[in-house]
């Protein structure tokens, strides 16, 4: 009974997210410094989980897109959209944190390594996805068009990935690849990293839950506005020169 009441509380995702983050960040701060990187490794405890979420989020967007195309149920569209928005945030965060880590480690903000380049490309692909959603007003057209883009984006990612990796190996013999991944020596480091990944996943789930709630309410507002029937008969109605795409152009 109690559990049910708690679940109904609309704030529970926030509570879960905040507690997970507190635990993970405490661990990341008390874990020992890395032998090579020193304290900079602490940035990794947020960078790596953020990067992991980027992939998770876009995979969920793909699932939502396919779900929508298969069933035409709006909940899948909301899932795809919410996950993409959260994913773009975490991709951006992962890139920024990577740069902040890279500057003291390598002396430069940016290197043209394959994974970094690919992450940046992915970021812009999904920025485009969100832009498409903003530009399309009719809910059904928006759901279908963005679902198709959601699938196209993922179909292209392996090809982009492959071409970028191939391009890097041609231009950078493996022997001079700088040390990138931190070598994990202490069990507490492993615990901190795992805790980070778990915590971020909880945060992701909370954000997507709330973002979907937002989408649902926005849809409800639109639906409610529609039922506030404008008096149709006995009055000059606005010009109904229907565009082929309601909300779109012409």
């Amino acid at each position, binding site marked *: 009974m109690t559990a049910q009441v708690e679940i109904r509380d609309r704030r529970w995702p926030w509570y879960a997210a905040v507690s997970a983050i507190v635990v993970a960040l405490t661990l990341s701060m008390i874990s020992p410094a890395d032998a090579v990187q020193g*304290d900079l490794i602490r940035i990794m405890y947020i960078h790596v989980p953020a990067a992991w979420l980027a992939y998770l989020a876009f995979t969920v967007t793909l699932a939502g897109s396919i779900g929508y195309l298969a069933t035409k149920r709006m909940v899948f569209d909301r899932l795809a959209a919410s996950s993409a928005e959260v994913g773009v945030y975490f991709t951006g*965060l992962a890139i920024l*944190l990577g740069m902040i880590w890279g500057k*003291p480690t390598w002396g430069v903000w940016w290197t043209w390594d394959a994974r970094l380049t690919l992450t940046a490309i992915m970021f812009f692909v999904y920025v485009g996805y969100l832009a498409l959603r903003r530009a399309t007003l009719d809910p059904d057209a928006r759901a279908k068009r963005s679902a198709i883009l959601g699938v196209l984006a993922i179909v292209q990612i392996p090809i982009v990935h492959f071409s970028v990796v191939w391009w890097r190996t041609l231009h950078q013999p493996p022997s001079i690849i700088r040390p990138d991944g931190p070598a994990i020596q202490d069990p507490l480091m492993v615990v901190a990293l795992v805790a980070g990944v778990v915590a971020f996943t909880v945060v992701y789930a909370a954000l997507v839950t*709330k973002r979907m709630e*937002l989408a649902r309410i926005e849809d409800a*507002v639109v639906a*409610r506005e529609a039922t506030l029937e404008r008096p149709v008969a006995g009055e000059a109605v606005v010009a109904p020169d229907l565009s082929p795409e309601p909300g779109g152009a012409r």
Partner: protein
Amino acid sequence: MSGQWAWVTFASLVFYGSLALFVGSIVWRLRRARARLEELS
């Protein structure tokens, strides 16, 4: 070592700051949408 902690602090600020902004934007949009729904019913 203190230089490294400066970077770690910077990274933490970026993380907390951006997370607060992102969460804030969702909360703000939620409030606005709820208010609008309330207004309509």
